[in-house]
């Protein structure tokens, strides 16, 4: 018996671990290493030149990087919060509907079916300053006579991107929160109404504590995939105009593929990975806590 027998769970998890190691972990180690080299795709020999932390020093002193970083955090903060709020609102609206629940729920899931690239495209179309639905509508209604340069002016472009982002991801929150509402026992809510609660108090003290874990599940799932905003931005503005909507991810792509500066791009990519991980771990912790609480009490 020289070979130790593997336990069942180890054996079952082995394929997953192997694939993820091969496709994610090892390449990431490689890219981590290359972030310490001046590696350029066009000059493979640079892969073996070690320059220490120079790439990191460079990007940390690069204003463009910080702008992109700040903008990314801002977009995520705005988008995630609004998605959560709107998702909650939507779920409450649908839950309260007495008729056509099935239809409403199906419609609610609609944006989930759109790939981010499609979302980007459809909003690029709708926000087009010349032929877009938004400007056409605003002009027909007489709100404005001039075409609003949605995707051409920096701030407006940021707004347009946020709207696209929110449109595409609100349904995740709505669906999961609705699942929570439907799973919730009805009597505590009725008891609260009899106990003298206004609808707002009922929500605040009884409903919300119950559906909170569901909101955290949605947040966790969502934070696993925050980088999908890349697809949307890529097609809507590609970081433009003049870098005014540049996010961390578009900046990484540009540095790596247009400028071919792989080493620097990898260093930046590590910041984006870190950002995702921070988001995910944070919500995962909250989710775990909320789960145990609700599991023990409800």
């Amino acid at each position: 018996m020289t070979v130790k027998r593997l336990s069942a769970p180890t054996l079952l998890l082995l394929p997953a671990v192997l694939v993820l190691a091969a496709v994610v972990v090892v390449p990431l180690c490689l890219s981590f290493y290359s972030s310490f080299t001046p590696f350029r795709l066009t000059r493979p020999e640079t892969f073996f030149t070690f320059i220490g932390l120079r790439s990191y020093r460079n990007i940390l002193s690069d204003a463009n990087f910080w702008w992109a970083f700040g903008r990314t955090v801002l977009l995520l903060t705005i988008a995630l919060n609004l998605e959560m709020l709107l998702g909650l609102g939507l779920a409450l609206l649908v839950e309260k509907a007495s008729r056509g629940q099935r239809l409403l729920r199906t419609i609610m899931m609609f944006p989930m079916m759109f790939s981010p690239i499609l979302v980007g495209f459809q909003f690029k179309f709708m926000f087009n300053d010349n032929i877009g639905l938004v400007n056409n509508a605003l002009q027909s209604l007489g709100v404005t006579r001039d075409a609003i340069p949605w995707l051409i002016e920096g701030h407006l472009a940021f707004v347009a991107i946020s709207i696209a982002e929110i449109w595409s991801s609100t349904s995740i929150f709505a669906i999961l929160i609705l699942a929570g509402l439907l799973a919730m026992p009805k009597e505590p809510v009725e008891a609260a109404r009899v106990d003298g609660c206004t609808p707002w108090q009922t929500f605040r003290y009884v409903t919300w504590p119950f559906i909170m874990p569901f909101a955290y599940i949605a947040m966790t799932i969502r934070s696993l995939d925050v980088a999908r905003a890349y697809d949307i931005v890529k097609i809507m503005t590609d970081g433009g105009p003049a870098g005014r909507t540049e996010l961390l991810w578009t900046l990484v792509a540009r540095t790596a593929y247009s400028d071919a500066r792989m080493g620097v791009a990898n260093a930046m990519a590590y910041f984006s990975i870190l950002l995702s991980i921070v988001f995910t771990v944070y919500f995962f912790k909250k989710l775990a806590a909320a789960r145990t609480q609700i599991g023990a009490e409800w």
Partner: protein
Amino acid sequence: MDANASARLKRRAATIAHRVGLFLAMLFICLPGIWIVLSSLRPTVEILAKPPIWIPQQVSLDAYVAMFSGVGKGGIPVLDYFRNSLIISVTSTVLAIAIGMAGGYAFARYRFRGKSAMFLGLMLTRTVPGIALSLPLFFVYARLDIIDTHFGLILAYVALNVPFTIWLIDGFFRQVPKDLAEAAQIDGCTRWQAFWQVEFPLAGPGIASAGIFAFLTSWNEFALASQLTRSINSKTLPVGLLDYTAEFTIDWRGMCALAVVMIIPALILTFIVQKHLVGGLTSGAVKG
């Protein structure tokens, strides 16, 4: 009586507010999709018209005909993209499900050291942004000479889908009572048989929906595909959509038609899985 009247009024106002809110929300959700379908059926002149023409005057399938009529006639190789998308998505889904089922079962049925850390670790691999992952993959794939191949993209997508598939399938197996498998073992099954005879059929619908979810992820993926594919050998539909924007003038109608082609499979599949999907994601929430 006064209090009753005002209470009644308040309730009626709330009902109306609710209906209006619901209507506006649904409108906002549906409008972009409807607009795209509509635009794909209208002649370009109408799309570009100033002042805008709201009600379509002419409806035709020209855009779809042009799209499928192949390269050279203003079309893009949609059929090739479609085929690539299908092959890559289906294969990667099947593999991800097989791997995910093993992993999900391990999480649902066994206790082992570092379980929650392991789970979190698997999830974290999913958080790596596609574009960040594409850098080293591009380099490695170039070395291995698997850029612009189906195999390369399939491998990447399996890795992309495994964590989430494990999460979902873990949830579905937890919904199958442990007693059932134990009863089957007492009835003379091996653990292996018990799994296939009892647990697998019961978790089946959930696993199917996890599969569809994985399929959709692959079908819609852009960040990796845009860097790891080059030509009609392996380009998928999302990357193909960019073909239209590459030129100076955008063929809005053509893009809308392609968008509709992309959305239809996703639409059908999502309808099928919606119920199970939510159940799988939330099963842990109530039962801990």
